[in-house]
């Protein structure tokens, strides 16, 4: 497990990147102490706008800053951002192709103590459905940090979700990212585990367990849910014939949906989906046990992989 929460890695990276890129401005809706955009605010007070509980307007203000030549990172909790400001995002960011970077903190079940009102379990589905929008879920702290620059320098609207929790380290300090390019962590022929975001660490554990049993697992990290690395997934479908997706999100419209949509057209394969099974979930005592309780455990991934393999033709 990482020493600091993913939000802290993001906040620190944003503050650091702000030094390199003076066009970056940051907006937050009274939760900068939670999203940790406070780290940026402390260093660049004139480039930080705390707009209170005005999420819808905050997105529009971000659009205006983007049209004025700035690179706004617009932050609040993922559920608030993508639900309360959904129309602003659709009309003024996506349709108008404004260069706004939307960052949803407290993704998935990571705000275990605040419960389902605060969980973001359909943010990826909403953002994926927006034309022009790139959608990103970094796997760990280093990937979140690398994504800050990648997102800022990407030409167009982006939605990125960030966990409140400390997530397992998956990558080393030399890790590089390219938006739209999936990452192969292990090549294998029996089954593919496709992970994303805060589920990636669990996918690594599941893969290790299956490999120890003699199963040749392929392991992919899909940090960019859109544009999806269809080639990488098709190759995996062709060569392994069975895939499991794992995400800290509803199985409707997220990573699982994206993979199914992509493969259904050209390379149908046995698919299993680990994620929230069309439920709001509930409050918990910590993120890890909460995820276990709602079907996101390592064992759930392992079982799903076995089911997928059994269904192979």
């Amino acid at each position, binding site marked *: 497990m990482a020493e600091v929460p993913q939000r802290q890695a993001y906040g620190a990276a944003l503050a650091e990147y702000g030094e390199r890129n003076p066009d970056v401005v940051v907006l937050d809706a009274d939760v900068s102490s939670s999203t940790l955009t406070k780290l940026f605010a402390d260093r660049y007070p004139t480039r930080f706008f705390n707009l209170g509980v005005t999420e819808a307007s905050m997105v529009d203000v971000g659009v*205006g800053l983007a049209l004025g030549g700035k690179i706004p990172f617009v932050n609040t909790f993922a559920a608030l951002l993508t639900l309360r400001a959904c129309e602003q995002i659709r009309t003024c960011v996506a349709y108008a192709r404004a260069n706004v970077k939307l960052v949803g903190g407290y993704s998935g079940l990571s705000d275990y103590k605040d419960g389902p009102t605060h969980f973001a379990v359909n943010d990826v589905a909403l953002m994926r459905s927006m034309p022009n929008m790139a959608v990103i879920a970094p796997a760990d702290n280093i990937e979140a940090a690398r994504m800050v620059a990648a997102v800022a320098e990407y030409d167009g609207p982006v939605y990125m979700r960030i966990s409140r929790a400390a997530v397992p380290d998956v990558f080393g300090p030399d890790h590089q990212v390219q938006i739209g390019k999936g990452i192969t962590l292990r090549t294998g022929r029996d089954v593919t585990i496709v992970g994303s975001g805060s589920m990636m660490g669990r996918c690594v554990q599941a893969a290790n367990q299956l490999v120890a049993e003699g199963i040749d697992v392929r392991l992919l990290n899909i940090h960019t849910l859109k544009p999806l690395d269809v080639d990488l997934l098709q190759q995996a479908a062709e060569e392994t014939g069975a895939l499991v997706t794992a995400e800290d999100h509803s199985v409707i419209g997220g990573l699982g949906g994206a993979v199914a949509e992509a493969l259904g057209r050209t390379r149908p394969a046995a698919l299993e989906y680990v994620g929230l099974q069309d439920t709001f979930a509930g409050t918990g005592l910590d993120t890890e046990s909460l995820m276990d309780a709602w079907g996101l455990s390592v064992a759930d991934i392992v079982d799903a992989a076995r089911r997928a393999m059994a269904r192979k033709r």
Partner: protein
Amino acid sequence: MHLHTEKLIGELQDAARQIRLDTLDMVYRRQAGHPGGSFSAADILAALYFHHLKIDPDNPGWAERDRFILSKGHAAAALYAALARRGYFPVADLEKWGHLDGHLQGHPDRIKTPGVEMSSGFLGHGLSIAVGMALAQRLGGPRYHVYALMSDGCMQSGVAWEGALTAAKYKTTELTVIMDYNDVQLDGAAHEIMPLEPIVDKWKAFGFAVLEINGHNMRQILDALDMALEIHSKPTVILAHTTKGKGVSFMENTAAWHGAVPNPEQYAKARAELLGGA
């Protein structure tokens, strides 16, 4: 403040008349559109595009241009007419409004149409976006003034008042809001559908300087636009009292003409009235 000559006033009134005529033709030709709200905004648009705004139609991306956002995007026809007559694109393009091979969308699209600063259509966004544009120029780079034309419908939306909070917090004097207050919306009179009064008190309470004018009096429009640039302590709203459907007797103050299309007889009568009117 400038002293505006009678000649200028006359020219701008002609421009406003042309905007209304073009709008009427466009709505009739396309058999779709929003004549009522376009006519109420025509004089304001003429004043902005043919005199007040610092713009260059030959260089729509000029960094120091003033920015105008039509928050009431359903007045698209009037904006398109103003942009075409001002030279942003050929007047002939107006005939292709809504066509598959044209660039003029049902509501304004900043990607497709030269001179459109921001896409709009759903009401209420313009104020917050304009605030963002105002804030952007404080951080270095080109200087310009930002204008947002809001309808009464816009000002029934929560997002617009959220934007007003932000404008007040940052005292965005680089921003002039214009409220096209025709008091008629799709379903009926605004004061019956969702009352906005006391609107002056509301704007003041939200930290704005309020300039109240007759939105069809060209001299008052020009004076208010100038005066707003001299207010350096707070953002300004020009509260323009207007008449929905202004210029066509049977359309005036009638909700039915929010989004209706005239039949051939009505079209002829409307055209005659606009050509005959001042």
